[in-house]
């Protein structure tokens, strides 16, 4: 996954993912591992996945959320450093049930100094409630040592931020969120703009939208051939004034990204990030539904800028 670096392993840590059935635990974990939305069947009891991050081997226990499996949670908590409690932000009719399960594990977290990250997932859903409602319904004001975040493991919204928080709670180390782009745009293969996001502290939107990006995209359309599913092609443009523009084409989209040297990431990393974004959109969206495509891109971009 392009968000995070992998180095030689030095230490290990264990985290446990809990929450009601259907809250999105498995999907959340898959997104951390693969950088894309993966639909899962229900988790049968529990499953374990491992990741290496910054020299730490992280063991992640994805616990089934069905009522029959909740008795298994306590055994895994005994040796956990961090718990991620996932809530379906769009299922307010289940908040009471979820709260009761959270309340059952809180004494153990307190007694064993286990850190807690509450993730309000499915932020992309039209029925998702405001984060303030989650805090109120789950009485999170009264808890110490808890972090609360909103995510969508479907669109990628907030996922990089969530991982940074989770890693910090698990290891005590900060992981710096990287900036991969100063501007990102997505177009249809015919050159119709779908969405653009710009670092507004640096540029005037009009100057970029009305000028450079459109011109580059038009030129790129003629140079980049149609792609088969799973294929991607790149062109690079250097601009003395603005930086390096990466333009990529996949089956259904043309994407462009502006890289500048002072972002602190290499051009190759930004290229990888653009590729991840475009394959995520290819995988998750119907290209005919440009409103949903734009929404998904805007959510995913929160990880890149």
């Amino acid at each position, binding site marked *: 996954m392009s968000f995070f670096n992998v180095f030689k392993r030095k230490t290990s840590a264990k985290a446990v993912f809990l929450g009601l*059935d*259907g809250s999105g635990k498995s999907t959340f974990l898959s997104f951390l591992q693969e950088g894309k939305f993966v639909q*899962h*069947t*229900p988790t*049968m*009891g529990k499953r374990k996945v491992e990741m290496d991050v910054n020299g730490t081997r992280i063991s992640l226990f994805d616990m089934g959320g*069905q*009522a029959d499996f909740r008795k298994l949670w306590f055994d895994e908590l005994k040796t956990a450093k961090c718990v991620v409690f996932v809530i379906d932000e769009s299922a307010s009719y289940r908040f009471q049930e979820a709260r009761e399960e959270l309340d059952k594990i809180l004494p153990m977290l307190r007694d064993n100094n286990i850190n807690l990250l509450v993730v309000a997932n499915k932020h992309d859903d039209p029925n998702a409630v405001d984060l303030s409602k989650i805090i109120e319904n789950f009485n999170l004001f009264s808890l110490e040592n808890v972090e609360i975040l909103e995510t969508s493991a479907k669109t990628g919204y907030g996922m990089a931020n969530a991982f940074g928080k989770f890693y910090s709670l698990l290891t005590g180390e900060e992981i710096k969120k990287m900036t991969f782009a100063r501007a990102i745009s997505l177009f249809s293969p015919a050159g119709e703009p779908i969405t653009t996001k710009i670092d507004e502290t640096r540029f005037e939107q009009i100057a970029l939208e009305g000028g450079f990006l459109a011109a580059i995209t038009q030129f790129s359309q003629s140079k980049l051939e149609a792609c088969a599913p799973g294929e991607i092609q790149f062109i690079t443009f250097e601009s003395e004034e603005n930086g390096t523009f990466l333009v990529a084409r996949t089956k259904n989209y043309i994407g462009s990204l502006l890289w500048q040297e002072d972002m602190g990431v290499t051009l190759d990393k930004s290229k990888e990030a653009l590729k991840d974004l475009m394959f995520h959109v290819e995988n998750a969206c119907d290209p005919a539904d440009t409103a949903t495509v734009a929404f998904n891109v805007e959510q995913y971009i929160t990880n890149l800028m």
Partner: protein
Amino acid sequence: MAIIENVTMCKLGGYEGSNPEIWGSFPPLEPTITVEDQQEFLDKSLPTGAEPGLFTSNRIRNIFIVAYTFSRKSAEQGVRDDLASISVIISDKKVNIEQFEILFKEIIAAIGSEIANIPEQVLLQMMERIYNGVNSKGKIKIDKVTADLSSIISKKKIHLEPKDPAEFKGGF
């Protein structure tokens, strides 16, 4: 003499509020598996950590449970797929277990990925067809697929006869 005692399907539904359950069985599970043992049977037919594509082989006392886990498309829009398993109960006094596992994999392969899309009613009929098909070493017809067991057994050189007790070390 029947090769297999029973075919059962178990399920963990993709819908909210589901729990693992025994979905159907042919013939009825009792008396082969008593009511007291049915939870253990369920745990071994759809074991912890099971994911689609997994073959497992477990034991309750003197019987073996050979199972295959698969996903099943939900009939409802927006509901995730079910996790399901098909399991067969066999006795090592009647069948060579390792050879039966090979046959079972061939049966599943013959049904193919269509198992995810087979309608519920057909899926439940499948148990009886597998039971009769295996025990007669004949044909199993499920939806649009036919598995010819005598042909599979012959091609793959599968020998289902139980192991000779004299083969065991220390036999007398």
